């Protein structure tokens, strides 16, 4: 079947554009970039059509990558139903966002660089998704991290962009450290990293009632997931990552890369099912992240920041789902979220593009006449994310909340409140941008068709995406949850509607009320507006002490005093002392040296020849 072709196309695109793109015109660059993704998408479709129904995973072995003792890692790719869903999301949404980026990036410098990185990202993401062992997945995992770094720092001349890129990279390293440890532990425990073999090995073990080795592995892997998927406590990089171009935010930081954690947890669900403690941790972290990020989202004024916190919050939802064992619900939400969040970002990008780079909601308003397509599509996306039936978000969110309702009610209630907050801040942004009077200075215009076309397609997907019954598609591997719970459904929809109504009241009907509300909750508002000072707390608790230790203990103490002064210079002094004795030998006469060599070789021959060397 040549699965390797799927990731190969983007790689070729990356190489072509990366090596020679600078010399080529923009149409050529975009044709290569989009052509490679389109080829990959179509080939993935063909593969899935050919394989379907993919009842048993189809895998291909290419070569043995690492062979060392019992440890054997192959370069294997495989496709099962879960991978199929992810493949279509990555290539499909990726294709739309690539098309969008033609218009968005049209006037930016480094056009070829952007597209080559973008293709590289898709390559690594496909590798991540199709890898059939943890190590190969980790290659993709690191690769997408690299691309994220490169693309967040795309405007590397701006200090905030390179800072944000560094932050994303470093925070991800913490998570990757956990991931690596988890892999090491898995190797030590199962002697393999292959998913199938681990699953077979785990199946023979009992479920760990208390924390055991499987719990440790899963928790360590989950540390990796919190880094990549921006969960508490490692979520801080994602809002800053909005420094990159908006298509990057849409593709990497909303639709695909950040969901890698969810995908990974789902992929190794056989481990999590054996570690209920870890699953609880996942669910709790997920739900806390959801409401925490949603509360910050309410107060943000930067349109992309709003959606960034929304992403964090929705990722929390997904983790809530997978933590509760509703893996298919989590993946379902992953898919619908890819549609509507990509749409939200692209719409926001369209607005920003139309306003010449303006991102602050306070300087927008009344754009619905100037940008009708953006207005409508963003509306669809907002309805979808708010969980209003029959839009896609409703189905997936409902699946998660139903699971929560039957498992632990408190999580359900937090989830439901979060749903309301979600609806509120999304519609707040929508209302602030498109209603009322225009508060900015730039002349607003609708975006070019290369941008609006993906918007429309994504809007259709966001509207009807809920009818792709992902849980049923995944049901052979991930059993369907209990029946839909009507109560949970009604409550969540109710909260969503409440959120929309409040937003409409505060930002359309009586705008003054919002300000008075701000004033009433002044302290709390400031706290939330500053994101609970989490960055500052990290700064004070982790970064400052580290800096202090590094500069005083490691640099001044260890490096300068111990190594430089004592070891290096001290050694040099000692050697110089001895050398002043021995350099008397250094007569400068080659013949004297030769005589010494002769004496030495004579000694060697004597020793070897007489002491047994010659028999």
């Amino acid at each position, binding site marked *: 079947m040549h699965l390797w072709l799927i990731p190969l196309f983007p790689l070729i695109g990356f190489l072509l554009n990366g090596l020679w793109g600078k010399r080529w015109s923009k149409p050529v660059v975009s044709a290569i970039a989009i052509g490679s993704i389109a080829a990959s998408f179509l080939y993935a479709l063909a593969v899935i059509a050919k394989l379907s129904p993919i009842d048993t995973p189809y895998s291909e072995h290419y070569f043995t990558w690492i062979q060392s003792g019992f440890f054997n890692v192959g370069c294997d790719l495989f496709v099962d139903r879960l991978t199929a869903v992810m493949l279509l999301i990555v290539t499909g949404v990726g294709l739309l966002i690539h098309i969008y980026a033609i218009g968005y990036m049209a006037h930016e410098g480094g056009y070829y660089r952007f597209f080559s990185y973008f293709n590289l990202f898709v390559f690594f993401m496909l590798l991540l998704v199709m890898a059939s062992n943890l190590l190969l997945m980790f290659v993709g995992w690191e690769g997408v991290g690299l691309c994220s770094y490169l693309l967040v720092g795309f405007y590397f001349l701006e200090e905030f962009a390179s800072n944000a890129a560094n932050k994303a990279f470093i925070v991800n390293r913490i998570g990757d450290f956990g991931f690596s440890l988890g892999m090491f532990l898995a190797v030590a425990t199962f002697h393999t990293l292959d998913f199938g073999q681990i699953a077979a090995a785990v199946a023979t073990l009992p479920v760990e009632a208390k924390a055991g080795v499987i719990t440790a592995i899963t928790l360590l892997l989950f540390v990796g997931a919190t880094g990549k998927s921006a969960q508490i406590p490692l979520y801080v990089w994602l809002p800053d990552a909005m420094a990159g171009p908006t298509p990057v935010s849409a593709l990497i930081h909303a639709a695909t890369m950040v969901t890698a954690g969810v995908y990974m947890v789902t992929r190794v669900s056989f481990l999590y099912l054996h570690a209920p403690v870890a699953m609880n941790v996942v669910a709790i972290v997920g739900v806390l992240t959801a409401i925490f990020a949603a509360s910050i989202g309410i107060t943000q004024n930067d349109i992309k920041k709003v959606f960034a916190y929304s992403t964090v919050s929705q990722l929390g939802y997904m983790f809530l789902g997978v933590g509760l064992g509703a893996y298919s619900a989590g993946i379902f939400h992953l898919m619908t979220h890819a549609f509507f969040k990509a749409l939200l970002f692209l719409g926001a990008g369209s607005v920003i593009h139309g306003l010449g780079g303006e991102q602050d909601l306070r300087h927008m308003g009344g754009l619905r006449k100037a940008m009708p397509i953006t207005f409508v599509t963003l509306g669809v996306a907002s309805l979808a994310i708010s969980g209003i039936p029959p839009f896609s978000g409703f189905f997936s969110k409902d699946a998660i909340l139903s699971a929560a309702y039957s498992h632990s009610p408190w999580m359900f209630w937090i989830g439901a409140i979060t749903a309301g907050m979600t609806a509120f801040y999304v519609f707040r942004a929508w209302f602030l941008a498109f209603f009322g009077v225009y508060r900015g200075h730039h002349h607003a215009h609708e975006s070019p068709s290369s941008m609006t076309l993906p918007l429309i397609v994504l809007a259709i997907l966001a509207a009807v995406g809920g009818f792709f019954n992902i849980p049923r598609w995944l049901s052979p591997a991930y059993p369907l949850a209990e029946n839909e719970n009507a109560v949970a459904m009604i409550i969540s929809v109710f909260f969503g509607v409440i959120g929309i109504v409040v937003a409409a009241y505060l930002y359309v009907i009586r705008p003054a009320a919002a300000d008075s509300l701000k004033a009433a909750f002044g302290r709390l508002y400031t706290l939330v507006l500053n994101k609970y000072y989490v960055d500052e707390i990290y700064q004070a608790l982790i970064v400052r002490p580290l800096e202090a230790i590094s500069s005083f203990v490691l640099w001044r103490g260890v490096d300068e005093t111990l190594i430089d002064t004592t070891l290096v210079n001290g050694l040099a002094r000692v050697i110089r002392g001895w050398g002043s004795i021995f350099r008397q030998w250094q*007569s400068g*006469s080659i*013949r*004297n040296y*030769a*005589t*010494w060599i*002769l*004496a030495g*070789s*004579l000694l060697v*021959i*004597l020793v070897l*020849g007489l002491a047994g060397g*010659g*028999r």
Partner: protein
Amino acid sequence: MDTLLFIVFAIVAVACALNLILQSHPISSALSLIGVMCSLAVLYLLLGAEFIAMAQMIVYGGAVMVLFVFVIMLMNAGAEKRSGKSWFAQFAGPPLLVLFAAVLAFLILRAVPKLRTVEFGTWVGGTAEHIGQMLFTEYLLPFEVISILILIAIMGAVVLASKEID
């Protein structure tokens, strides 16, 4: 016959080598060295190493020593002067040399007693065909490496010799 040849050419080789270190003019030494090399080539032939014997003549006799003679002629190197330096070599050298020779001879005669006798024609292993096969199978890597070494040596010699010193 081959015994006679060995004796004659061994004497020639030793005599030439002695001449090398006794003559004071470099060009005499160089010619003595050529004599040593040619007699060694004959000894190689006796030992069945016909390719090596010819290579000895071509490479050493025809290339290396020509370079020596050339350089001597170019620099018009005269006879050596006496030098009072290197006292250590002057005093410690002779006993060490004698000891060295004695030890080597002793070890050869005592430690490796069971050696064949040399009869010309009983074993001709070193034909060009055999050498070529070994070079291009078992010793391929050293062969390629040494060709690179030669290339680098050529470049080094050109760079060194062409450098103008002011």
